[in-house]
C-alpha cells in the first residue's frame, strides 16, 4: 500500500515584472517552475531519498507535502485521499501524521521557547493528550533523541549546540507519533563531525518507530546509506528514480551519471573521467518545454528539447530514467 502519492505535482512561482515593464513595455508575467509534473509514490515504512543541486525543487516538494504550500497543479494523495484544500479536523489529522524536520536548526526553533515547550508545542496545539501525558511524552522523546531530559528541558535554543538543536527539532516532530517524516536536509547546517550521530539517530528511530520518510539531501553517499529508493531531480523535473543502490552504482540518466561522478573519492591518486556535460546550471525562469537537462546534455537532440519523459508510479520499485536516449547512452 502506498502511503503517499504525488501525482503530476507542479509548483510555479510568479515573478512580477517591475511596474514600468508591466504597464509600458507589457512584459508578460514570468514563472519560476520550481517543481514540474512530479510523479512519485512512497510506500509504508519506506525512506525515499531526494537528491539534486540547489534550486532543483527538493525543498519546494517538501513544503508542499507538509501542507505549508499549495501546489499550482497536480495532486498529493495521502492514503489515497487528496490533501489539497483540507480544512478543520482533517487538516489537523494530516498535520499530526505528517511531520517535518527542518533544514536549519538555528532558524527553526523559536528563540523564546524552552526545549521542552518546543517539543510540547505540537501536541498542545492539536490538543492530543492532557497536560500530564504531554509532559511525560516530552521527557520520553527527549531521552530517546539523546538529550537527557533532566539536563535539557529548561534550556533555550541559544543555550544548545547545533546538533542538540537538531535533536530538539527531531524530537518535536516525533513526539506527535507521525506516520511520515519529511526531513529537508537535516544535516546540511551541521558540522561534519556530528552528522553521523544525527544520521544514526534518524535511522535508529525509523526502525524503532516505523514511519515512512522523505529524506532530502544533496549528498548521495548519505542517501545511499539511509534511503531505500532515491529520486534524482534537476531544475524541478524528476530525472531518475529507483532503488538507492541501483541508482547510485548503476546510474542511467546522463545527469545522474554526472552527479554520481562528482562524488568525491577519498583517494588523492585516483583519477576518473571528467563527466561529459557542458555549461552551467540554467535558471528555472520560463524554461522551455523539454527536458531541463537538454542544454547541457551531450546526447540531446530536438526530441529532448520538445518534450520530457515523465516517470510512472505503476511499479514503485522499478528503476526508471526520464530520458529519450537511454538506448544510445547504454551503448556508448
Amino acid at each position, binding site marked *: 500500500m502506498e502511503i503517499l502519492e504525488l501525482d503530476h505535482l507542479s509548483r510555479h512561482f510568479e515573478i512580477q515584472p517591475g511596474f514600468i515593464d508591466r504597464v509600458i513595455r507589457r512584459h508578460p508575467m514570468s514563472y519560476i517552475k520550481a517543481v514540474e509534473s512530479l510523479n512519485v509514490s512512497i510506500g509504508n515504512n519506506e525512506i525515499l531519498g531526494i537528491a539534486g543541486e540547489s534550486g532543483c525543487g527538493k525543498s519546494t516538494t517538501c513544503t508542499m507535502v507538509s501542507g505549508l504550500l499549495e501546489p499550482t497543479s497536480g495532486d498529493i494523495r495521502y492514503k489515497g485521499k487528496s490533501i489539497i484544500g483540507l480544512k478543520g479536523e482533517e487538516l489537523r489529522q494530516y498535520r499530526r501524521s505528517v511531520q517535518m524536520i527542518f533544514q536549519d536548526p538555528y532558524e*527553526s526553533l523559536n528563540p523564546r521557547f524552552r526545549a521542552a515547550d518546543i517539543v510540547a508545542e505540537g501536541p498542545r496545539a492539536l490538543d492530543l493528550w492532557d497536560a500530564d501525558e504531554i509532559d511525560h511524552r516530552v521527557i520520553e522523546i527527549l531521552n530517546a533523541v539523546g538529550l537527557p531530559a533532566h539536563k535539557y528541558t529548561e534550556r533555550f535554543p541559544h543555550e544548545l549546540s547545533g546538533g542538540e538543536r537538531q535533536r530538539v527539532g527531531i524530537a518535536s516532530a516525533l513526539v506527535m507519533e507521525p506516520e511520515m517524516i519529511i526531513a529537508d536536509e537535516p544535516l546540511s547546517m551541521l558540522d561534519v563531525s556530528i552528522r553521523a550521530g544525527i544520521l544514526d539517530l534518524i535511522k535508529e528511530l525509523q526502525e524503532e518507530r516505523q514511519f515512512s520518510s522523505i529524506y532530502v539531501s544533496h549528498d548521495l553517499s548519505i542517501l545511499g546509506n539511509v534511503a531505500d529508493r532515491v529520486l534524482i531531480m534537476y531544475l524541478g523535473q524528476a530525472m531518475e528514480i529507483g532503488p538507492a543502490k541501483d541508482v547510485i552504482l548503476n546510474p542511467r540518466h546522463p545527469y545522474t551519471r554526472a552527479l554520481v561522478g562528482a562524488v568525491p573519492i577519498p583517494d588523492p591518486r585516483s583519477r576518473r573521467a571528467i563527466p561529459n556535460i557542458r555549461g552551467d546550471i540554467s535558471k528555472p525562469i520560463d524554461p522551455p518545454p523539454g527536458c531541463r537537462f537538454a542544454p547541457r546534455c551531450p546526447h540531446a537532440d530536438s526530441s529532448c528539447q520538445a518534450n520530457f519523459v515523465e516517470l510512472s508510479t505503476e511499479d514503485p520499485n522499478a528503476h526508471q530514467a526520464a530520458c529519450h536516449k537511454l538506448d544510445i547512452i547504454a551503448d556508448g
Partner: protein
Amino acid sequence: MSANRLSRQLKNLRSGLAEHYRIITSNRLSAFGFWIIILFVVVAIFAPWIAPHEPWEMVYDRDGNFASLRPPSWQFPVGTTHLGYDLFSQLVLATRTTLLIGATSGLISIIIGANIGLVAGYYGGKIDEVLMRLTDILYGMPFLPFIIILISLFGRKLEFVILAIILIIWRTSARVIRAQTIAIKQRQFIAMAKARGCSDFRIIYRHILPNVLPLLLLYAAFNIAWSIITEASASFLGFGDGETISWGGMLYELWLSGKTRVAWWWFATPSICIVLLVTSLVFVSRAYEEVANPRLRKR
C-alpha cells in the same frame, strides 16, 4: 505533577520579571526613570492620605490670614493659588488623574495597536490593506481639532478625554508592530509551528507576540508618555475634565487667573512633574529599545 507545572510557571514568571528588572536597571538613566515612575505611582496610590487639603479648599496660614498667592514655605511646600488653594495638595491629587489617564489610554492604545499590527502583518493581503489604510486615515487626523469635536459632542468628561487619546495614539504602535510581525513571520520557526499544527491564533499570540515583546514594551512606554502629554495639553486648553484635577488643568487655572508672571511656583511645579514623568518613561523605553534594536547597544 500539576503542582510541579505550577511551580515551573511561577519560576518562568519570576525569571521573566527578573529579566525585565535587569533590562531596566542595566542602564543608569533607565534605572533613574524606573524609580521616578515608582515614586509617582506610590504618590498616586496614597494621594488622599498624602494631600493635607482638598484640591479646591481655601486655606489659611497659622495667623488665620487667607493664604492667597503664597510662595513656597514650610506650611505650603509649593505655595498657594490666588484663590488660596494649596498647590501641594493639588499636585499630589493630580498625580492620580494623570497616571490614571496615562496608564489606561497608554495600555489600551498599545493593546489595540499591537493587535491591529499583528493581524495586519500576519495575514497580509486585503486585511492588511484595510487596516493600514485605516491607520493612514488616523495619521491624517490632527489631535486638537479631533478632541475639540469629541468634547463638544459629549462634554468635558474624563472618559472622553481618554477615548480621544486612545483613538489617536494607537496608530504608530500598529505600524511598527506590523513591520516587525512581517519580519518575524518569514522566519522558519513560524513555518515549523504551522507544520506542527498550530492555528493562526496560536501562531500570532504564542509564537510571534513574545518575539515582538521588547518592541511592544518600548511602545507601551512611549504611548503612556504621549498620553500624559496630550492629556496635559488638552487640559491646558480647557478640554480636560473640570471635575478632576490634573497637572494640565492646574496650568489652565493659572492661565485663567492671569498670574503667570507673578506665581512662578504655580507653573513650575506641574511643569516639572510632567517633564519628569515623561522623561522617565522615555528613559525606561530607551532600555527596551536597546533590547529591540541591539545595534544601539554600547560596544
